[in-house]
């Protein structure tokens, strides 16, 4: 299990989610647990609570998981996925209020230095579009 906060990317588009994850991997590296999901069960645009829960499982770290989302449904479905987590994970998963691509890179950079979940979230949210 990684000593770093995990990052989960949730987009309506699988292409956007995967592309964002590719940028994190290339720019930040492999020391941050990372998972992504995007699209609905039929392969169209959308988000899916089950897929988000699987992504959380895949990126899980004892230090917690920070989720980056794109538009409305991604956020509400992520919140639902968090509510469905077992009690021992409650309070250790957060949705960041940040742009998905930039926020994911910033959050992962902060996480890679071993920062706690609060710092990872704050770093992603500190970003204001320039």
């Amino acid at each position, binding site marked *: 299990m990684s000593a770093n906060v995990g990052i989960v990317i949730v987009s309506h588009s699988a292409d956007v989610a995967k592309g964002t994850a590719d940028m994190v991997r*290339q*720019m*930040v*590296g492999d020391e941050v647990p990372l998972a992504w999901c995007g699209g609905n069960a039929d392969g169209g645009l959308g988000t899916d609570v089950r897929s988000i829960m699987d992504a959380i499982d895949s990126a899980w770290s004892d230090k917690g998981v920070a989720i980056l989302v794109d538009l409305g449904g991604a956020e509400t479905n992520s919140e639902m996925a968090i509510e469905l987590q077992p009690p021992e994970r409650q309070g250790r998963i957060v949705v960041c209020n940040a742009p998905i691509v930039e926020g994911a*890179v*910033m959050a992962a*950079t*902060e996480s*890679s*230095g*071993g*920062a706690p979940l609060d710092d990872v979230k704050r*770093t992603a949210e*500190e*970003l204001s579009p*320039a």
Partner: protein
Amino acid sequence: MSEVMGTVLLTHAVGLHARPSVKLTKLAKTFASSIRLATTPDGPWIDAKSIVKVMAAKVPQGTHVHFRAEGQDADDAVAALIDLVERDFDESRADATNP
């Protein structure tokens, strides 16, 4: 505790853009010392461990980057950061055209 300072010329083709910024802040975070950087000797000084602040500084190619560090590993920190910039962030010329 004494402060350690150092200056290096940024030669990287695209300047301190996204990927070099990530490398710089990741390296800075490996040291216990507080580390700041500036593009003039008079500042303003920004936290070299803050990816958001370093990226927002948008330091262009040809800039002299000034570091100052304070702490028990300050010497090593400044030396390592200067080395990273001098190595062009370990990126080849071909890579450097991408952000």
